[in-house]
């Protein structure tokens, strides 16, 4: 009987734990107290209890004890004295980082001097509470835990986002790959119908067959583009020292016909050598210059490719004298399948710039456009300057 009556209390208590972010709510928490003075431990716990913070504490006096505790158990907070025999409480921040744990560390210490206190916060301590101002401790603990919870939520949603992006890419790849085969049948056989029965049925039939052929061929292009788009994300980066001048030359070679037909004049500055995926850089230049040619004005296109080093990044520009883009569309042109014109005006699936964005972002950079209607466009992208591929980069391959 008695235990049954006690149960609901326990539940209420546990509920308090779950809502630890609520200021003033009763909270139970697990803490490591890094302290060599038992009286100081007691004072700190008392201060917390007075503010409805029930602490289940473990005491660590040495680096080894601390490391073992955080490896074995999970904690909500670390309360650490600064000056300890043989080490100082700030070292616990480094240990947690090395262990890959995000547990807020609050220094509970005698006067350290302003500079040391500021340094501790800079190095990652959540807060700094003076032993003779322990009334501040509960608020500090609640805030540190609230922030840790936010960080954890953020990490989770980031991981979730990354996972769902990977799934989506996988889906796009499989879908576009498997769609190609039946589409090939539709395209070839509607074309055969058109060829064999043109003028033998009636004019409506000819028109309908033409629509079917056109739709199938357009869908084929769409599926191929989608496949290209999903490949950029799936295959990872093949990073190597890349001469951007050569990448540009190759892009121009691929665009030779379009350049000749439009009478385009492409000028280029000396471009740098960067650590990048060269085939992706070729594609990047090719898409940007291809667009500059496609969206030309009444004059033959004049396109200027340049690069400028600025701090730890290199900002590339592809400037044209084309039809330009309205300011309100400057963001949306990079969205996949977004088109600003009808297919009759300018053919395409609206995938080129989204591939550019993906390539630039994969390299840790960003891309944007500066333009006005009728005033030409300048597409710029900033790539971070790395001298050699890092181990992390190599692992991405």
């Amino acid at each position, binding site marked *: 009987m008695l235990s049954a009556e006690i149960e609901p209390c326990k539940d209420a208590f546990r509920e308090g734990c779950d809502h630890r972010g609520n200021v003033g709510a009763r909270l139970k928490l697990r803490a490591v107290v890094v302290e060599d003075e038992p009286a100081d431990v007691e004072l700190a716990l008392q201060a917390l209890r007075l503010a409805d913070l029930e602490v289940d504490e473990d005491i660590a006096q040495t680096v080894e004890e601390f490391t073992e505790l955080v490896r074995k158990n999970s904690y909500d907070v670390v309360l650490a004295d600064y000056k300890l025999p043989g080490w100082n409480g700030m070292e616990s921040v480094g240990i947690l980082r090395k262990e890959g744990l995000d547990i807020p560390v609050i220094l509970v210490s005698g006067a350290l001097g302003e500079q040391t206190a500021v340094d501790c916060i800079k190095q990652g301590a959540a807060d700094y509470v003076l032993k003779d101002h322990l009334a501040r401790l509960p608020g500090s603990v609640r805030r540190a835990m609230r922030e840790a919870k936010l960080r954890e939520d953020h990490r989770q949603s980031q991981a979730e986002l990354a996972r769902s992006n990977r799934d989506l890419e996988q889906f796009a790849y499989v879908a576009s790959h498997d769609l*190609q*085969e039946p*589409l*090939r*049948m539709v*395209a*070839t*056989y509607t*074309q*055969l119908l058109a*060829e064999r029965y043109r003028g033998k049925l009636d004019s409506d039939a000819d028109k309908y067959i033409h629509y079917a052929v056109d739709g199938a*061929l357009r869908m*084929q292009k769409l599926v191929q583009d989608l496949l290209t788009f999903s490949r950029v994300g799936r295959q990872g980066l093949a990073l190597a020292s890349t001469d951007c001048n050569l990448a540009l030359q190759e892009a121009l070679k691929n665009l030779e016909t379009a350049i000749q037909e439009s009478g385009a004049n492409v000028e280029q500055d000396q471009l740098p050598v960067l650590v990048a995926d060269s085939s992706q850089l070729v594609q990047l230049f090719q898409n940007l210059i291809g667009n500059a040619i496609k969206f030309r004005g009444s004059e033959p296109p004049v396109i200027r490719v340049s690069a400028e080093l600025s701090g730890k990044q290199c900002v590339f520009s592809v400037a044209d004298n084309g039809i330009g883009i309205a300011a309100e569309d400057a963001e949306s042109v990079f969205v996949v399948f977004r088109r600003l014109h009808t297919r009759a005006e300018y053919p395409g699936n609206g995938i080129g710039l989204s591939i550019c964005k993906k390539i630039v972002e994969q390299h840790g950079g960003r891309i944007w456009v500066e333009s006005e209607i009728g005033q030409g466009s300048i597409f710029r992208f900033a790539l971070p300057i790395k001298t050699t591929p890092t181990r992390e980069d190599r692992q991405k391959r």
Partner: protein
Amino acid sequence: MKSKPEILMVDDNPADIDLTSEVLAQSKGHFHVNAVNDGIEAIAFLQHKGKYTKAPVPALIVLDLNLPRKDGCDVLSNIKADPALAKIPVVIFTTSQASSDIARSYQLGANCYLRKPGNLPEFVAVVQSMADFWLGFASLPQREKR
């Protein structure tokens, strides 16, 4: 009178067989296409087994990779391992663009690798030039007598 050059096409897609036969039947060479739908049938045809005892020896084999029962690579290695068949040119004709498929096919002794084009004009051009090249321009070794 010279007999029509015989082609063996191994493909599980009837639409591709129809289209290829059609193109070849209308071409100058008047090729005759024998079609089978999987790898086991292909080997039976080539070895004159079962219902294929009277099957002709083809001058050219057009082989898809993705086949039921026994896939194209298996068929290819069987052909190239059989002295009676090894000299018949084999053209891989498939939708796969995977570089691994291309490399493996040549590794196993394929004479040529062609991707099935996605539209009619290209399909016709590829099939036509394949037959013209292998059965017209190319000099091939003397056929084995049965």
